């Protein structure tokens, strides 16, 4: 008895109605209606505001959004101007609706519909399988395309820098690194290596065909690491 509330045909509520239980609207409500139970709007009922509840059954007029956690049913004679959303939406012939209708409900309710939920995941995997297929070729194309440019850049770019680095690099490091004892071994390792590696490959590349240059690997004379370790220790 106390669970179901009734707004009589001769009653006008201007304000918000919310709470637990079901509600039957036979009169007028000017404001939002939000209950946990069902909402029934009778043929003479009129609501100007948003209505939300578990099951909404509308035979009267609603000017506002209908949002249901279970279902929305527009009976013949219903007039709704507003958005309708709920897991299940029914619009009977003779009902008038104007607005956006969405049958997607809360995720929990959508998952509860086992058959529908089972059918959809099957579709999704196929998309997932098709998606990876185009990706690898794209990666391969990218892999092939970028390769030549770097080779050219390496061939052209390294030329000026090595000369500058050779001239400048060895000079400043030696005075800077001189004070600290730990850094002493470094300059000898860096200085001798680059000249050997850069001078040899750079010259043959130019006259020869436009081949990618051989990997520039600084040649470290045998025993430098051991020397460094010993010096660190």
């Amino acid at each position, binding site marked *: *008895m*106390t*669970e*179901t*509330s*009734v*707004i*009589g*045909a*001769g*009653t*006008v*509520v*201007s*304000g*918000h*109605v*919310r*709470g*637990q*239980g*079901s*509600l039957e609207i036979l*009169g007028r409500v000017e*404001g939002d209606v939000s*209950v946990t139970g069902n909402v029934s709007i009778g043929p003479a009922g009129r609501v100007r505001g948003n209505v939300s509840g578990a099951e909404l059954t509308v035979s009267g007029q609603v000017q506002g959004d209908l949002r249901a956690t279970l279902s929305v049913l527009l009976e013949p004679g219903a007039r709704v101007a507003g958005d309708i959303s709920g897991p299940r939406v029914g619009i009977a012939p003779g009902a008038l609706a104007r607005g956006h209708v969405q049958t997607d409900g809360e995720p929990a309710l959508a998952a509860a519909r086992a058959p529908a939920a089972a059918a959809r995941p099957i579709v999704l995997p196929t998309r997932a399988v098709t998606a990876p297929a185009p990706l690898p070729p794209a990666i391969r194309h990218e892999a092939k395309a970028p390769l030549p440019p770097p080779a050219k850049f390496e061939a052209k770019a390294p030329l000026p820098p090595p000369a500058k680095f050779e001239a400048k690099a060895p000079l400043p490091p030696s005075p800077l690194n001189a004070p600290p004892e730990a850094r002493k071994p470094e300059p000898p390792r860096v200085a001798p290596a680059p000249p050997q590696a850069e001078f040899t490959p750079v010259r043959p590349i130019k006259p020869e065909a436009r081949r990618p240059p051989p990997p520039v690997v600084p040649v470290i004379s045998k025993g430098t690491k051991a020397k460094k370790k010993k010096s660190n220790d």
Partner: protein
Amino acid sequence: MAGTVIGEGLTIEGDISGDEEIVIHGNLRGRLTTTDAVTVGGTAVVGADITGASLSVAGQVTGDVTASERVDIQAGGKLVGDIKAARFTIADGASFKGNVDMEV
């Protein structure tokens, strides 16, 4: 059968007006105007000015009451506010605080 019933657990914030009987078991904040009887149940909490033909209070009411016929505060009922009614009864065990005007 009452025309309008506000069930327990339901809250209305706003005005209620009509020409039929209104029974309240839930919460109401605002204003209540009707030409018929008003019944405030034991579980009801009403913070509203009430205007009606008659008023029966078993719950809590805070607000001024104007009744064309009568106002009855039942045992266990609580009313805080001024009352303007031709007849007015307070049952044993009821609580009331306010002015009474019986010149209608």
